[in-house]
């Protein structure tokens, strides 16, 4: 089960908004999915470490040398609102 307040809280965390119908449907769907993943509680996982990398790769390092990357012009070319090579955003509310 997942409460209406929890659904609204997670929506805020993820910067998503839903109308009343969507919230009702999501609450039911998420509740069913959460109930379903509860099956993991039935496994005996005592003493097992959580997997962090499935192929057990350790730290990968490289020399810290500058290489050519995208130009500023290329990097901002997809921006929805760009001025003087910078991304423009609305004011912080």
């Amino acid at each position, binding site marked *: 089960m*997942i409460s209406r307040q929890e659904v609204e809280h997670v929506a805020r965390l993820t910067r*998503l908004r839903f109308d009343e119908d969507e919230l009702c449907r999501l609450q039911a769907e998420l509740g069913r999915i959460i109930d379903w993943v509860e099956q993991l509680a039935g496994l005996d*996982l005592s003493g097992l470490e959580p997997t962090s*990398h499935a*192929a057990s790769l350790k730290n990968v390092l490289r020399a810290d040398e500058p290489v050519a990357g995208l130009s500023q012009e290329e990097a901002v070319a997809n921006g929805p609102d760009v001025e003087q090579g910078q991304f423009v955003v*609305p004011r912080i509310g």
Partner: protein
Amino acid sequence: MSAAGGGAALDVTTLTAYRCRELLARGDVSATELTRAYLDRIAAVDEQVQAFLRVDESGAMAAAAAVDAKPRSGRQPWEGVPIGLKDIFCVKGVETTCASRILKDYIPPYDATIIAKLRTAGLIFLGKLNMDEFAMGSSTENSAFHTTRNPWDFDRVPGGSSGGSAACVAASEAPWALGTDTGGSIRQPASLCGVVGLRPTYGAVSRYGVIAFASSLDQVGTLTRDVRDAAALLDLIAGRDAMDCTSTGLSEPAGTPGRADLRGLRFGVIEEYMGEACRSGVREVFDAAVDSISALGGVCEVVSLPSVERGVAAYYLIAASEAGSNLARFDGVRYGHRTEHSEDLYEMYVRTRSEGFGPEVKRRIMIGAYALSAGYYDAYYAQAQRARTLIIQDFARAFERFDFLISPTSPTVAFEIGERAADPLAMYLSDLCTVPVSLAALPGISIPAGFSAGLPVGFQIIGPHFSERGLLNVAYALEQSLDVNTVAPLAETAG
């Protein structure tokens, strides 16, 4: 003009990539003629199949002309062979959307590493293929743009998320295609469309420039008409990449598979996938393929991997958690969709994301954030990662006794469009047999094994880490023995 078979238009319906390479090398066909033939085929059938999101006719023809301008002796082996690309790969200067409204009109300023490799090898990019939005789905119905249809039955799904890639090969719209597999997104659509789908070991292929879904699971792989093409395409894309520190490359090239028998090899039939979840028509085709392995000299025995039945639940939590983090970057600031109504920054984020993402993507972002949120992290995410450790151990134990593990790729044949769309859980269970392989970072291949009521049935072979060379040889031997038709009986209605 000297197209294969005389002066008539080249028939591409049965061509493999190897055959394309031969025709080009002998001068039986020019790169321009070959590319034109595939573009004509796309024009003739894609109105029905809808595998492509965008066909890059001018780009493909220009690349083909550049190949033809070089002397044949100065070309590389695969130069001039066309390919289809899932819309998850960044191709410099070519719109790349991941089948999402939030990335509509996005033009990558760089090539994914694998795209750069194929470009250097001289392959011709025919266009971008449909998929479930951000690769989240098992039917390609979650594309924001349209639904791709299964070339064997237009009322059915091609599988997903690489549904466009699988359908395009099955419909002969390209000799081969690239896809990605997070929980089964290459193997399951390959199974449902009757083509060969290879997911390499995690790390064999660079993910740089591949739009991320779940980074500990995402892996690039191949959709081809046969096993030899899969090996060739894998060797073209594999390798360590400084731009992806999780990439390691293969331990040895796949080469050209040619194994004729399976003597001396032990195959474990995964018991947990033989139960009621496996539909009867699929079971019969699977059993017949097991008999073929035995006839080729392989030894098949049942093996139990108890943890795999919980694999989908663990996968779902891990993938959704990673997706929630990866998709936080879509905020309307640097690229992609931005809402038109935004009086302040928070409102801009919320409206942009709510307008840009589809329902399944939102569902997974929500689940992921919930699983990672304060008070639930241990109960869900950490528990799922412990279950993943258990699954890895079960596979490791099985590989002490067996060289390869086998199962059906999908418990069912292609389902009807709309059949599972309203029920997320039913859709997730489409990946029952493929997901644990992803969790354990193992290589897996689906090859066509036969038909149930006219619909393709796939056979999954799983190997230890970096066993691609052996895995492809085994798949080749079985493929030769089964000799299954991979050409969907399509009528050309347009073009």
